């Protein structure tokens, strides 16, 4: 599934990020392919807020749609 389909509270592993520029930026923020993160909030039609540890970051909806994730047990 893709990141924009996750629901608040779900934990997932990031499988792929289909955007070279965002991929590099995300690595520096702390999420890379293989990272484990959780969905914090989804704004209706808008960005997905993702949490990794104490850190939160927001990804625009269409970027979230290009990120493949795999749900795991929280």
């Amino acid at each position, binding site marked *: 599934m893709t990141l924009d389909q996750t629901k608040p509270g779900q934990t997932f592993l990031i499988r792929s990020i289909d*955007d*070279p*520029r*965002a*991929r*590099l*930026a*995300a*690595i*520096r*923020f*702390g999420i*890379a*392919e293989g*990272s484990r993160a959780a969905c*914090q*909030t*989804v*704004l*209706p*039609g*808008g*960005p997905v*807020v993702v949490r*990794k*540890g*104490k*850190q*939160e*970051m*927001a*990804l*625009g*909806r*269409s*970027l979230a749609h290009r990120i493949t994730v795999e749900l795991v047990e929280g």
Partner: protein
Amino acid sequence: MAQAHCHGPNPSVDLPQQATKVVLVGNPNVGKSAVFHALTGIYVEVSNYPGTTVDVSSGRMGDLGIYDTPGVYGVSSFNEEERVARAMILEADIVVNVVDAAHLNRDLFLTLQIIDMGFPVVVALNLMDEARVNGLAIDVERLSAELGVEVIPTVAVRGEGIAELKAAIKRARRGRPTPEVASRLPGDLPQVDGVLWLEDDPETCTRIGREGPGLQEEIYRARRRRADEIAERVISETTAGASLSARLGRLALHPLGGLVLMAAFLLVMYQVLGVWVAQDVVAVTEEIWMGEYYVPWMTDLVGRFIPVESFLGQILVGEFGLLTMTVAYLVGLLLPLVLGFYLFLALAEDSGYLPRVAVLVDRLMTVVGLNGRAIIPTILGFGCVTMATVTTRLMGTQRERTIATFLLSLAIPCSAQLAVITVMLVPLGPAYLFTFIGVLLLVYGAAGAVLNRILPGESSDLLIDLPPLRLPRMKNVLQKTFLKARSFLAEAWIFFVVGALLISILDQTGALAAMSGALAPITEGWLGLPRDAAQAFIMGFVRRDFGAAGLFNMALDAHQTMVAVLTITLFTPCIASIMIMFKERGKGQGAAIWLADIVLAILLGGLFHRILVW
């Protein structure tokens, strides 16, 4: 640097060229400026939002030169701040890497990059208090061993750990590089160049005349893996509970709660700025202090030496007098509102609320082909459109910069103009004010949507890191408000003076009446305004607020006020903005935007007049 001309003084000390350069490097919002301040004792702005402090500060610690850089997540050239930071890091003799103890995992990427590049490094593990509140314990010795450099825990705003940090800077040493980087370094290049070349850094590749190996992503991944591993080993969670700040941060982004909170913030802002400052405070400063005391006193004073009715007398103390109207508007009207605006901006920045607003509005901004980050230039535009136009550099693509620049010049009134507009509209009642806001939003949305459709290419997506919500430190907020308001007025007054002078001369020579006559078909015929309104539009070329101020004195009915205020808002931005626009967007695009502003303003103003009549 980038915003030098409009905002932010640049405390800078003269240092001999050969002095050892200590450069402070860190992610945004890690308290880097506070560390700088604690080390040097010179005051600098402490900002909370990535993208608002491209200014660079320098100071002195004994015989060492201390330099503060914009907050960045890595050494590269993704945007303006990164280019500034990168250039300063490459000049460093010693790097003090300030990291956020509560976000160690994220910050270690930059730490490892700096260490890989071979700089002597000391790590200031800042915000230790926040980490404790968040239930995090960090094994400092272990971290130091992993990195191979000294790690000093600090709480810079309270001065904790600063003495230890000062001592450690003198012992700074090179750390343990990431194996995947060290093993690939070409032997014939200096280490810094070698690392940047491995990462395909375009500038380095060009300078050394060698094509990059295409390893950027691989190196980044290796570093991220190592950062995660180190963080795993040194951090332990003592409690699982979320802090109040984290809970509030979550509320600020809740689909419903977030909107309620934002509405509350805007309502408080309206009450304070629109009602209290614009009416009660201005009634005292403008009408009483200026109108009843200062202006008559000055007119009387000048009248003792020169006849008030003479040419010079009119220029000094006449209707557009340099010593009367100009001063009264600047001090009585603008100053209180500009101070109030920057106070709210500083609060939103320093509390970390601004990035959350970016997330909330992202969905809406995509309609005009921008992402949520564009809210920063937009909000800044309500302060100073000139400064905001410069900050459009933080946007991902040229396409977005074009759209943002156009929308700023068309539909965002700056604080100076807002001051006059608020004073004109508020007495007419809330219905007029909300109509004005509604029409502006409509124009903003429609113009943006059209550009989004016709401009080629695609806009970039929102991808931002959210700093924790913090209680802003009042001392910083007030100091920042004061500094920004001061530099705003320092920049604005000259345009006011030139504008007043110009209009006085045009008025005295009869040119103004002639021009007003020539433009009558537009002002009277199309816009339904008195003939004199042309004066205000001519003044509007100098400064928008100056144009609005020209309308302020006219006897307009409610309907005319509405049309006039709307047209002057959409009309051309001030000369300073136009110059920056030409500089940032090039002559062709700059001219196109400028012309479009003027044509659209008159066109829409007239349409609006007809709709109101109907």
